[in-house]
């Protein structure tokens, strides 16, 4: 399991869902949470020296810069090559999952989800990241 002091970046344009995601992260035990309302803001946070993000949990559908756009930007930057990145979406179509996997996502959560589902998916993502980094 993750070190629970890991700084987690939660990204969603819908405030209610952001609160649900933050609450689920807290229920798992994470204490160091940062949030952003879209991919542009999330990218700023990732690049800020004030932060040391160790895990990104992002919605897919957002204005300006989607979760997939953010993922591609993250994977295109060598500094974040092994940053665990989990996408959350209301969609579960195979083509979208394949697109996210091609872009380098570490795991994929279909809404609705519980804190327990999030915990399991994050553990799977961590295992995948470790494998990539080995």
């Amino acid at each position, binding site marked *: 399991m993750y070190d629970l002091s890991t700084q987690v970046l939660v990204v969603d344009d*819908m*405030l*209610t*869902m952001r*609160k*649900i995601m933050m*609450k689920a992260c807290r229920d798992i035990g994470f204490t160091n949470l940062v949030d952003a309302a879209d991919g542009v803001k999330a990218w700023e946070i990732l690049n800020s020296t004030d932060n040391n993000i160790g895990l990104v949990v992002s919605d897919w*559908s957002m204005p300006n810069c989607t979760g997939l756009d953010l993922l591609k930007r993250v994977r295109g930057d060598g500094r974040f090559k092994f940053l665990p990145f989990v996408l959350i*979406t*209301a*969609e*579960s*179509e195979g083509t979208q999952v394949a697109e996210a996997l091609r872009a380098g996502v570490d795991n994929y959560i*279909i*809404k*609705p*989800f*519980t804190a327990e589902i999030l915990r399991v998916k994050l553990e799977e993502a961590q295992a995948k990241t470790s494998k990539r980094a080995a």
Partner: protein
Amino acid sequence: MGNTLKSGIDAEFINPFIKAAKVAFLTQASTDLVSGTPYIKPPDEEIRMEVAGVISLSNPSVSGSISLCFKREVFLKIYENMVGEKHSEISPEIEDAAGELLNIIFGQAKTILNDQKGYSLERAIPTIVVGERLRLKYSRHAPVILIPFECSAGLFHLVVVVEHT
């Protein structure tokens, strides 16, 4: 396409939304739903609502809309179940929950309809409508199907208006 009941309601199209609503509310809002029998809205029946999430459908197979409509007190209780915060009014801070719940329902139902029933519904973004004595106007060409749901917070409706093209 479709399994039309005597009532004129296309059960094949409606049932995935009922199933998805039950899963969405139970998982995301810890709220058990009991669905009532879907029926076509009589012209003189108005359902009271103060907040609604609306998704418009427009693609080669169907056109219309899906709406999730709540009375204020029902919405506030469901929001509390979802987020753990108590609010006394529907504010911009919380109104997006109506759209988010509908988004989850639509995403789940869309997968079933596209993968198993041969539809080609596309991703859609919900609009949120808030106001006193809210009334949603629908096309006169398609029946307005009301799906009532009862839960600990009270009664609310999923409204499906769909024309197969």
